[in-house]
């Protein structure tokens, strides 16, 4: 019976693990709902500000914001990597980081310099391990993508762009497709591409008319403000999507872990019962054998 106690202990420890993973699954499920709500609530703002930015880019010709001007030579690239702060969410962070790393290698092979802005702990840890130069970071965002926490890190990148430190800015994050599926994506943030500006312009022909705005107090600061807010809204949206992705990936991963634990418990119980049965049979046959010998 030496093995049976070990098996019993093992079953107990797997059961404890299962309790934890099941609790984490339920926590993630409730957080996921909230994160999805937040993601959806952020959409109207993104759409409105895109419309305004699109109107503006057509209306005003004398001042073009630097975010709209594409540069011919690309030497330095800024990337923003959005990851989660915590692990245990399946391959979510690994996928987006692998995508980013492959892209970075390709850029480096072309002789471009890369600087990284990390949003989220996992990305920061990874980037400092691989030795990328991290210019700014935000970690510990919690469960709400608080825009006032993001502003600082984003400003470093945007300022870098306006001051010609970067010629292009990309963002990497996990796009939320549905609860079961999240996709790592790379998007060009700056310069703003035309299709980005026009993608929600299907509303009517009316939006094609150019507005001759009155700017108060002046055109430049107002346009600057709107452009910065627009880019911030894009980043906010990416962070909100990444958070919804994180929670649903965690829920799925924890569900898989609980199921696996259930399987392991089943197998171990079977082995335990078999060994118990074998021991009883052995004892019985010994007794019978002994009685026959007498």
């Amino acid at each position: 019976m030496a093995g049976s106690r070990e098996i019993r202990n093992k079953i107990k420890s797997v059961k404890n693990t299962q309790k934890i993973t099941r609790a984490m699954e339920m926590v993630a499920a409730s957080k996921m709902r909230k994160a999805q709500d937040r993601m959806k609530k952020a959409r109207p703002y993104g759409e409105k500000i895109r419309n305004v930015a699109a109107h503006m880019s057509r209306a005003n010709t004398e001042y073009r914001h630097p975010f709209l001007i594409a540069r011919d030579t690309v030497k330095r690239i800024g990337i923003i990597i959005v990851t989660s702060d915590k692990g245990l969410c399946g391959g979510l962070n690994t996928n987006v980081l692998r995508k980013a790393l492959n892209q970075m290698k390709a850029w480096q092979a072309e002789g471009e310099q890369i600087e990284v802005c990390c949003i989220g702990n996992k990305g920061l840890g990874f980037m400092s391990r691989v030795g990328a130069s991290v210019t700014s970071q935000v970690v510990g965002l919690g469960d709400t993508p608080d825009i006032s926490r993001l502003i600082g890190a984003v400003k470093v990148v945007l300022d870098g762009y306006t001051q010609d430190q970067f010629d292009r800015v990309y963002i990497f994050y996990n796009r939320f497709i549905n609860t079961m599926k999240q996709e790592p994506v790379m998007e060009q943030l700056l310069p703003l591409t035309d299709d980005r500006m026009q993608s929600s312009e299907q509303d009517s022909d009316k939006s094609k008319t150019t507005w001759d705005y009155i700017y108060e107090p002046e055109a430049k600061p107002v346009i600057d403000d709107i452009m910065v807010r627009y880019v911030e809204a894009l980043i906010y949206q990416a962070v909100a999507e990444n958070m919804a992705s994180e929670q649903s990936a965690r829920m799925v991963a924890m569900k898989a872990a609980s199921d696996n634990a259930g399987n392991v418990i089943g197998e171990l119980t079977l082995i335990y019962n078999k060994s118990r049965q074998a021991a009883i049979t052995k004892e019985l046959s010994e007794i019978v054998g002994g009685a026959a010998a007498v």
Partner: protein
Amino acid sequence: MGTIFHLDIVSAEESIYSGPVEFLVAPAQMGEVGIYPRHTPMLTRIKSGMVRIKAQLKEEELIYVSGGMLEVQPDVVTILADTAVRSHDLDEAKALEAKRAAEEAMKNRESELDYAKAQAELIEAMAQLAAIDKLRKRGH
């Protein structure tokens, strides 16, 4: 048309108001502006304060916004409300903070590596102890 226009007040975190209104007063940077339907197109910053809205057949409504942008088209008005308190200096301070945190993390990279190394060694030592323990049990 003519007597009402569509108003949207949105912030990054939620949609605050959406619907037809007759009249609106917003705290623009250069002073309060009142907007009736078919106002000239206008773009301006707004300060934090109350936006007064009069919808048809309804009481006047007051909504607080903490600053943002106001876009006026003849029959559509959009207020893009900020969720955070913004000012140039504040933004600058936050940017510096984010930069400093990154620099510190880069500086501490070495010590972090040492930590990881120590942890790996510790795990190895623990595994060895466990193995010895097991062997001892089996042997006797």
